[in-house]
């Protein structure tokens, strides 16, 4: 077999652009170790170049490197999502890193490496490729989670993430081994053609467990609150959004498009979805730490997305993809605001510390309010559009009970999002929290607010883009 043809290289140009950027960032950082250099701009430019290449390639289908990478519209669409998350994260993280005296180029390089591996995750045509790229993503995220290494919570977060990552990788590998034995191949197309034997089914379930782990879906969610609470806010924002979106895209590609949602899957999915919603929502109600609260909310959101996945139809595929996008936008925004409000060393992440913050920082508080209302599924925001479509898709597939359950759950969930709004807007400020909003963070937050509201009121463009990207 030829090692790589021009076509192969051509199809992964966006990834190469990111790789080059990451390398340049590290080199520039090594030669000019002076504080406050604008590496965020440099990496953002790299991301934009990658996005441009992605744009040029959009519509160029085909396998690359034998049959381990498959590029289709879904892959390119997914690339846009990851690139957007990376762009926002790199762009505003500089403010945070400067404040924490951690303005090292590694941060940007790690984010870029993670992003390019996510791009491979979303376009992998073989379970092996999926596993390898996911491990690269995870390794980058372990390092990022512990980036502020003298903060205990951070280190704890990184360690926990590492242990759980290893644990879920074990499931993954075992499952893949059984699948390989049963189907004779790890290629997705071959697996989808194989007869379902008990051996294959068990292998797939084990593999699915590792996916549930990564999606922090209950009952495989135990790591999520600690990890998301401990990691630095911009990192949490990034790993909660882009990394999960990558898995969602793969789920659409593998479980929905190739395998199809059948009886056994359906009951597994409904179970996981219901449990995630219940555990996520009811645990979030009691949380007083904003980051922890959002971590539980993300468990519940995995449950909502699972409602769309369970429908197993074309509508469901679109709904899942759109849900992933909406979820990324809302959470990125929320964590961007939190990264500012938390102050130095992230001291003010408790709701009691944030009380009355709207008096001093009305715009920041209002922005966080928009993201929270969007997470709660308030019409006029992208959160509603995505939830509506996810539920509508499941409804059409006849999952009435599940949709009813999800609807009631989203009403319950409104409570804890409101609780944050209540602390920010309706309490008198106890002490003045002295935080400064960096220019980059301000731009990123306003951009996300605009996108969340715009896509909530006129979702046509984004929605059609997502729909066109699915075959």
């Amino acid at each position, binding site marked *: 077999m030829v090692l790589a043809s021009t076509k192969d290289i051509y199809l992964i140009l966006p990834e190469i652009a990111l790789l080059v950027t990451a390398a340049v960032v590290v080199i520039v950082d090594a030669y000019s170790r002076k504080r406050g250099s604008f590496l965020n701009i440099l990496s953002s430019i790299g991301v934009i170049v990658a996005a441009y290449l992605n744009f040029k390639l959009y519509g160029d289908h085909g396998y690359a490197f034998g049959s381990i990478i498959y590029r289709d519209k879904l892959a390119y669409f997914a690339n846009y999502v990851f690139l957007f998350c990376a762009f926002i994260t790199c762009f505003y993280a500089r403010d945070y890193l400067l404040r924490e005296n951690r303005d090292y180029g590694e941060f940007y390089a790690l984010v870029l490496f993670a992003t390019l591996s996510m791009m491979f995750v979303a376009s992998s045509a073989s379970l092996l490729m999926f596993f390898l790229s996911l491990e690269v993503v995870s390794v980058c995220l372990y390092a990022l989670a512990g980036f502020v290494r003298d903060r205990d919570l951070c280190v704890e977060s990184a360690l926990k993430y590492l242990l759980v990552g290893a644990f879920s990788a074990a499931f993954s590998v075992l499952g893949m081994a059984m699948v390989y034995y049963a189907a004779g191949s790890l290629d997705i197309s071959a697996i989808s053609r194989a007869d379902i034997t008990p051996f294959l089914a068990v292998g797939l379930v084990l593999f699915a467990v590792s996916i549930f782990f990564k999606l922090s879906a209950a009952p495989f969610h135990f790591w999520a609150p600690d990890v998301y609470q401990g990691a630095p806010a911009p990192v949490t924002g990034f790993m909660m959004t882009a990394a999960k979106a990558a898995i969602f895209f793969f789920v659409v590609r593998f479980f929905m498009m190739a395998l199809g949602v059948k009886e056994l899957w359906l009951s597994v999915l409904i179970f996981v979805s219901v449990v995630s919603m219940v555990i996520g929502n009811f645990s979030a109600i009691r949380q007083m730490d904003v980051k922890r609260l959002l971590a539980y909310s993300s468990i519940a959101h995995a449950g909502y997305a699972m409602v769309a996945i369970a429908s197993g139809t074309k509508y469901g595929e679109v709904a899942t993809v759109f849900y992933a996008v909406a979820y990324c936008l809302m959470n990125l925004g929320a964590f961007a605001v939190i990264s500012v409000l938390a102050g130095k060393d992230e001291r003010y992440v408790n709701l009691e510390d944030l009380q009355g913050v*709207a*008096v001093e920082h*009305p715009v920041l508080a209002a922005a966080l309010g928009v993201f929270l*209302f969007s997470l709660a599924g*308030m*019409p*006029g925001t992208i959160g*509603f559009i995505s939830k*509506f479509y996810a*539920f*509508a898709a499941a*409804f*059409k597939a006849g999952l009435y009970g599940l*949709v*009813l359950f999800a*609807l*009631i759950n*989203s*009403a319950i969930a*409104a*409570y804890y999002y*409101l*609780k944050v*709004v*209540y602390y920010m*807007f*309706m309490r008198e400020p106890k002490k003045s929290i002295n935080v400064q909003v960096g220019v980059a963070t301000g731009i990123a937050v306003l951009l996300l607010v605009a996108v969340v509201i715009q896509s909530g009121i*006129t*979702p*046509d463009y984004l*929605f*059609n883009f997502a*729909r066109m990207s699915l075959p």
Partner: protein
Amino acid sequence: MEMGNFPILSVLTFFPLVGVAIIAFINRENVNVIRWTAFVISVIEFIISIPLYFAFKLGTPQFQFVEKLPWIKSWGAYYYMGIDGITLFLVLLTTFLTMLSILASWSINKRVKEYMISFLFLETTMIGVFCALDLLLFYLFWEVMLIPMFLLIGVWGGPRRVYAAIKFFLYTMVGSVLMLGAIIYLYWMHYKATGTLSFELMELLKLKLDPRVVPFLFLAFALAFAIKVPMWPFHTWLPDAHVEAPTAGSVILAGILLKMGTYGFMRFCMPFFPAAVQKFAILFLALAVIGIIYGALVALVQEDIKKLVAYSSVSHLGTCMLGLFALNLQSVSGGLLQMINHGISTGALFLLVGMIYDRRHTRLIKEYGGIAKVMPIYATFFMIAVFSSCGLPGLNGFVGEFLTLLGAFKTYPLFAVLGATATVLSAAYLLWMYKRVFFHEITNPENMKLKDLNLREFIIMVLIVIPMFWIGLYPKPFLERMQPSVEAFIKLAKGEKSVVYQMEGRKVNLASLISEKLER
């Protein structure tokens, strides 16, 4: 008067947002500038809404001032606005009460900028709810409305404001999500029947539904609206929200937001599911009557004037529901008119309670007594509002209540008789309260120093008293504008779906009612 193609409803809906934008750029220290800007915006808004009344075509159930633009094309959702005889006065009431409420908010000193922004934003969403003829658009306004109201109660309310605000929000949210489920069901059923995606009211009204699911859908919609009305077992959020909300918040809550519940019944719940209306009519009539009597009895023993007025709302809205479910021309017209009346008279009572609260910072009846002597003008206006609320002939309350009971008596005499106790009981609790607050000697020395109404308050009261006399003495312009739409509503709620075509302004075509894939 010709309106041409002027998109008056969109202008009405979004003009307050212009005010929001302007206020956002005013320095928060310039409190007076902010107040005046908000007030001027709301006055202009009211003036823009007046032509609706004059340009409204009589004698047709058609939707008027219709605007229809594609909104979310891939979902078949339209930006579809229009009003008929049912919503015309609700829209006018909204612009009118918002204007007065802003004028009554001069006593707000805390975070005035955010207050006025919330208030104007609230106005946008309220008008949107009444004008939207596309279910998705309606749901958008319906839900978004919660945010400014939540903030108004929670930030500027009384001591237990947070509890009240969260209770209000969650109660409404629970109702709405079930309604959303029902909307999704209708949406897919329509798609199944016709192959086109649509959230349009008119299209969905033509659907023939599976009789087994109709009761569930009806109850899903009814729960959302019954919470908002509020009907009897779902009313518990109301006293909390009313008592804790700032004066202007209570006025809007009682005057407009509660009407959205009854409006929802008229526009969506009952026309969509006529079969279920028949089935559940007795249940809802009974709940309405329980609400009437329960609200009145509880109001009788209240010590807090504002709470008394709040419970009187439960009672009055029960009358509206009685009228709607009795389903004849008199009762429904009466119920609809009673919605407007309640907005005006209860609005006036809340405004008056707010004025005395600003002076004494208490609303307990026992703190007062004999204040008619020191505040004669205030006492006069209070008297008019009380009479209007308890239905004295010559004032608005009488016309609405009388028509409702008259109509209800024709179809359900027992419920009408029970409902008629409301007139007696409301006179009892209101006049007894009036007696204890205004007559006798002044026992509390603090009341000696009370100042009578100032010019601003006087203007507010004069403005709100005008429609009381107008409707009371000459209700014809109101009733004749409502009548065709009310008739159409009754036919729909009785299952005559062909009326939809009249409402659309198309020729009646019975064969093309959506039961099979005949149309398109």
